[in-house]
């Protein structure tokens, strides 16, 4: 069972997040118009998969860009201009470097979309009445509880935190 709790102010939601975590609720996520926790705002540990993707993209571009230039100007059609060497590593650097930046960024951007499974214009949570205000002026906490947990026990934990609403939902896929 998914529990969604709506708050009217950011600090209330943040306090509730800490309280609920200390009460033993796990995997509490927030939905807010701006990054609510320090973790969300600064991503201190970052996202290693994204970083690795970027690194992979850059590495691919390093090899691919140099290879294309080498093939074009050395293997396929060498141009002798003023006796300069055909395989001019220094002259191939600018294009190689720019390609690395491009591919690494593309990989990170693509990785973000893939990991977040975006674009996904409709999601089950959008069906919750008033949830759209999570991008304007409301702050939601969401967490999962075992099906045997009674609504009363959740209410006992959540109500002292001054939520505006508590929504219980079945998980649907």
């Amino acid at each position, binding site marked *: 069972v998914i529990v969604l709790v709506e708050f009217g102010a950011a600090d209330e939601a943040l306090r509730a997040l800490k309280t609920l975590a200390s009460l033993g609720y796990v995997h509490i996520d927030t939905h807010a118009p701006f990054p609510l926790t320090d973790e969300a705002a600064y991503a201190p540990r970052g996202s290693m998969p994204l970083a690795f993707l970027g690194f992979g993209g850059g590495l691919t571009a390093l090899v691919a860009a140099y290879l294309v230039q080498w093939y074009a100007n050395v293997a396929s059609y060498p141009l002798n201009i003023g006796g300069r060497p055909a395989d001019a590593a220094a002259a191939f650097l600018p294009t190689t470097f720019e390609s690395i*930046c491009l591919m690494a960024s593309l990989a990170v951007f693509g990785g973000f979309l893939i990991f977040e499974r975006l674009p996904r214009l409709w999601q089950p949570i959008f069906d919750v009445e008033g949830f759209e205000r999570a991008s*304007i002026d409301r702050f939601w906490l969401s967490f999962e509880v075992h099906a045997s947990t009674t609504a009363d026990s959740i209410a006992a934990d959540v109500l002292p935190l001054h939520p505006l609403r508590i929504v219980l939902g079945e998980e649907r896929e």
Partner: protein
Amino acid sequence: MIASARTARATVDSVASPGAEDTTVVDTVLAPLDRTPRSWMLLMLLCSAGTILWVVSVWYTVYAGIGAWGNNIPVAWAFAIINFVWWIGIGHAGTFISAFLLLLNQPWRAAVSRMAEAMTLIAVGIAGTFPLLHLGRPWFFYWLVPYPSTMGVWPNFKSALPWDVAAIGSYLLVSTMFFYLGLVPDLATARDRLTGRTRRRLYAVFALGWNGAGRQWRRQRAALKIIAAIVAALVVSVHSIVSLDFSIAQLPGWHSTLFPPYFVVGAIYSGLAMVLALAVPVRSAYELQSVITTEHLDRLARLLLTMGLLLAYCYLTELFLASQTDDARERATQLPHRPFGPFGWLYWVMLALTVGTPQLFWSARARQRPPILFGAAIAILIGMWIERFVIVVTSLAQDGLPASWSGYIPTWVDWGILAGSLSIFGLFFLLFLRFVPAAVLAEVRRERFENATGAQS
């Protein structure tokens, strides 16, 4: 108790909101998306007229060839390259403000970074048109890309022209991703806040289904930071590569190892000036004073002063290097030709505008007066354009072969393309203001939240 999707939208405003989150900043930033002021329409008309001038000038250039320009031999590079370097320089501040200041955890950037990024995208796009037109046969522009063709002819990667293609192409694409990734949450806010079915759907498509989950924020911030780190290296490399167009040539006044840092400094300087020149009128026209505060303008002015001093240092270094070389032509270019040659008066105007103007900003009062800031920014922009004119034209007009020295007079086509490019810039910037939230809402709000609660990691 999950409600149905259809009813949810209808009841947004019926939900009670006791003493809740302050949304003035949201409404302030989204307000321009809701109205079309008369001044906007007038500027739009003006920019459209200028754009028509651009189309006519470009059409005539393509029809008649680049002989329609004032270029001659030896002044074979002129307006097209000056404009190119000027525009791409302007396109550097967006990334400078966004990427560097994001990496340095400077939250104040949020108020102006969106505008600066949009400015970057438009300016870089415009910059790209100049080398293409200068190709002479722009319809063969795709020959610059190594695509497998039956001709078996490839670009020459030892030439600076394909370097420019790689640099500008990458910069444009990476900046677009950086801009869009930061924009998605604000598009989601627009999707949920604005009225009108079609409009909401349109914003919903571009918001990609953003749901504001903490995990999503964390990933977005991480992706933004990684791309910022890449783009920080990229931005320095782009104008360095542009400067190599000059410094790999043997021409006096161009052939110098100073050029990459010199150009990067000049680029960021002119870009910051453009940010100020846009931010000052926009904040008063759209009543964004509470978002883009005097404090923000003050900091931009300080940056401008810093960059102006760095640029002055580059000018001095250029003279110093010339004084140490035994290349007599280099010495002649730097000493009699530039300050006292046929274009000497431009050199002094350049010094007054680019080095003189920012000295105003030693005064805190000047830094906080929007009209002074606006005037100074425009003066610096003009000065930076003249700087590129001095670099390009003086070196060419009096090159190593005195018998071929000549003057240079631009034609109406040159002026038409320059004025037209300014209009296109205005056109796209006005569209940006009308349809895209102009400040990074999430970051502005996060900063205020931190200031209010003292929360910080």
